[in-house]
C-alpha cells in the first residue's frame, strides 16, 4: 500500500474527529497526533460526564425509593442534594472559608457542650445542696 493510499484510508477518521481537510493534507504532518490526543481527552471527558450523570440519577432514584418505602411515619423526607457535586478544586478563598466555617461549627459545638455541662453541674449541685438541707 502506498503512502497516498494510507493517507486516503486515514482521511475520513481525521475528518470525523474534527480535523479540517486542508490541515490534514497541507498542514504540519504531526498535527494528526494532536488531534488524536485531543479526541482521546474529549472521550475521557464525555465518559466522566456520563458517569457523573449516572451518579445523579442513582442519587435521585435512591432518594425517591427511600421516601416511598423507607421513610417512617413522621420522619422528614430525605431531600435530593441541594447543590451539584463539585468537580473543580476549591480556590484558596473557598478553602479558607471552609476552614473558618468548620472552626465556627466546632466552637458552637463546644460552647453548647460547655453549657450543657455547666447546666448539669449546677442541677447536680442544687440536688446535692438540697439533699444536705
Amino acid at each position, binding site marked *: 500500500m502506498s*503512502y497516498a493510499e494510507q*493517507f486516503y484510508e486515514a482521511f475520513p477518521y481525521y475528518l470525523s474527529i474534527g480535523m479540517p481537510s486542508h490541515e490534514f493534507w497541507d498542514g504540519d*504532518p*504531526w498535527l*494528526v*497526533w494532536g488531534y*488524536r*490526543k485531543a479526541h482521546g481527552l474529549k472521550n475521557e471527558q464525555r465518559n466522566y460526564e456520563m458517569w457523573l450523570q449516572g451518579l445523579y440519577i442513582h442519587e435521585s432514584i435512591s432518594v425517591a425509593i427511600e421516601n416511598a418505602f423507607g421513610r417512617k411515619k413522621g420522619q422528614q423526607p430525605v431531600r435530593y442534594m441541594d447543590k451539584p457535586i463539585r468537580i473543580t478544586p476549591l480556590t484558596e478563598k473557598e478553602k479558607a472559608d471552609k476552614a473558618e466555617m468548620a472552626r465556627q461549627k466546632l466552637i458552637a459545638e463546644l460552647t453548647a457542650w460547655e453549657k450543657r455541662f455547666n447546666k448539669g453541674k449546677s442541677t447536680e449541685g442544687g440536688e446535692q445542696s438540697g439533699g444536705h438541707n
Partner: protein
Amino acid sequence: MAGSATNDAAKPLILTDNDTGDKYTLEFSRESVKFAEARGFDVEDVGKYPMTKVPDLFFYAFRKNHRGVARERTDRMLFDDLKGLSPAAIERLLALYTAPFEALVVAEDDGGEKNARMTVEL
C-alpha cells in the same frame, strides 16, 4: 505541539541563497507526498537510484512551501549551487518525506503501554 512523538520529528531543511538572501524551507505534507507518488516516485528507490531519485526528492520537498519553484530551478540549485547534498541532508529529506505517514501510526504515549502485552526498547 508538545509531546515525545513530535519531539522526535525531523526539522525542516532550510536553504539560504547567499546572493539574494532568499530562504527555502523544505519539508513534506501529505499532499506533497501524494503529489510525488502520483508521479511515480517511490521513496525506496532513493537508495537504489540516488542519481535520479535524490533530485526528484529534492524537487518534491519544495512543493509544500514553495509550489511555484520549477524543476529546472531545483536541479540548478542542487547541482550548480549546492554541488549535491550531504548524506545527512538526504537522510533528513527522507525523514521529512516519511513523517506524514509516521505521524499517522506513531503510538500514543499517554499510558496506553501500561496494558500492552509487549513493549519496545530502543
